[in-house]
């Protein structure tokens, strides 16, 4: 217990980093996810195919592998790509350093992953709005995008808040995978404390407990939002 007390502030800092990366990733994931989700419903075939491929890839491969691709793969791609362009097209050298800062890699990997799930949430939300709404808006002379913006999306957003909350909770736990590239979130901090003190059980239990506090608080918040929105529906 003494170890836990002494290292608690370290774990707490890890929890803060976990929360931070989750909030940033889900926020960016919402923006990208909205674009991808609407593209899935687009009348333009190419856009629809690209969005579907995106969702399939990021939902069909492990987040851990995606993290490796971004953190280890992307720098090599940048280096080799630039070398190729310099050799063949006389492009001047722009990048001298290729390694991604671990925070940036974490944000990229988690946002891209989150966007795929959020895209599906938005798509389902938009499709759950009855067809008559779009027809009424179009019959008044609104363009498809006006109808989407003023009529469909405001209604869809209410319906997607609960599943978005679940995505947030899932992502909060999945950020523990970032420990493998050394991003010092909660799990990585746990590893560091255990590595120094050789006290495993209480430390990992504390780590688990900190995750639980965060997910518990957030799921109560989602429940509350769900109840509030239901009465207004």
């Amino acid at each position, binding site marked *: 217990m003494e170890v836990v007390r002494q290292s608690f502030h370290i774990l707490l800092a890890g929890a803060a980093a976990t929360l931070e990366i989750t909030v940033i990733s889900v926020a960016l994931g919402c923006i990208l996810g909205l674009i991808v989700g609407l593209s899935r419903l687009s009348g333009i075939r190419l856009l629809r195919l690209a969005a579907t491929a995106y969702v399939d890839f990021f939902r069909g491969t492990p987040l851990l592998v995606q993290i490796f691709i971004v953190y280890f793969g992307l720098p090599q791609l940048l280096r080799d790509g630039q070398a190729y362009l310099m050799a063949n097209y006389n492009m001047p050298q722009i990048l001298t350093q290729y390694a991604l800062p671990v925070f940036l890699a974490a944000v990229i990997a988690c946002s891209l992953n989150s966007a795929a799930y959020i895209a599906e949430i938005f798509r389902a939300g938009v499709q759950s709005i009855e067809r*008559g*709404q779009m*027809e*009424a*808006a*179009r*019959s*008044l*002379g*609104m*363009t498809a995008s*006006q109808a989407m913006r*003023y*009529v469909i999306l*405001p*209604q869809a957003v*209410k319906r997607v808040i609960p599943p978005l909350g679940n995505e947030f909770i899932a992502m909060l736990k999945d950020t523990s995978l970032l420990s493998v590239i050394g991003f010092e979130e909660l799990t990585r901090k746990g590893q560091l404390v255990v590595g120094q003190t050789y006290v495993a059980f209480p430390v990992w239990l504390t780590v688990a407990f900190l995750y639980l506090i965060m997910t518990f608080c957030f799921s109560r918040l989602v429940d509350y939002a769900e109840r509030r929105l239901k009465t207004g*529906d």
Partner: protein
Amino acid sequence: MIRVENLHKSFGKLKVLNGISCRVAPREVVVVIGPSGSGKSTFLRCINLLEQPTSGQIYIDGVSLLDPKTDINAIRAEVGMVFQRFNLFPHKTALENISLAPMKVRNLPRQEAEAVAYDLLKKVGLSDKANVYPDQLSGGQQQRVAIARALAMRPKVMLFDEPTSALDPEMVGEVLAVMKDLAREGMTMAVVTHEMGFAREVGDRVIFMDEGLMVEEGTPEEIFLEPKNSRLKAFLSKIL
């Protein structure tokens, strides 16, 4: 005002419209009757391209709807539509439902759009419901707001797709009353309905549709008192 030529519409293999031709003159009220599944609603929905016709021509004020160069949104703004299920926007108040399209499509300033909306609410007898959301309105009230919403665009034509079919019987009258007022003011209207009383009283012309064809058309007297076609006779005997 509206001219339809040899309109065909199929959903996959199902042929819904098999060559409809008709005209609606300015200030005329045309009522379309017929058994369910006869293509009445599909016909009406083609007139503002909520359904894409398979073939044929539709002109509104001389402009071809099926010409790829036609700005369909501009046409729709001139053609009001009232739906069976109202389709009010549930996240907006009655007033906002009415003022939204004039603001976004016609670029009217909010104040002006709201003034128009208040006038229209008064016209349909719902001045006191301006700030109420659709789910707090009865079916009849919702449909009257929906009519006001369509009128806010100052349309040249109004299309009514079974506007009273989803209403409780005691609310049918209030909606028909609003429609009668409109007809009296000279609005050009195409109405699909099962309300034969309305067809008789308000219609300038009645069209009977069956199996995707216009089987018979004429004045209300001709249609209801001297029906010629056997299917029309059978239809009338069932409902009158």
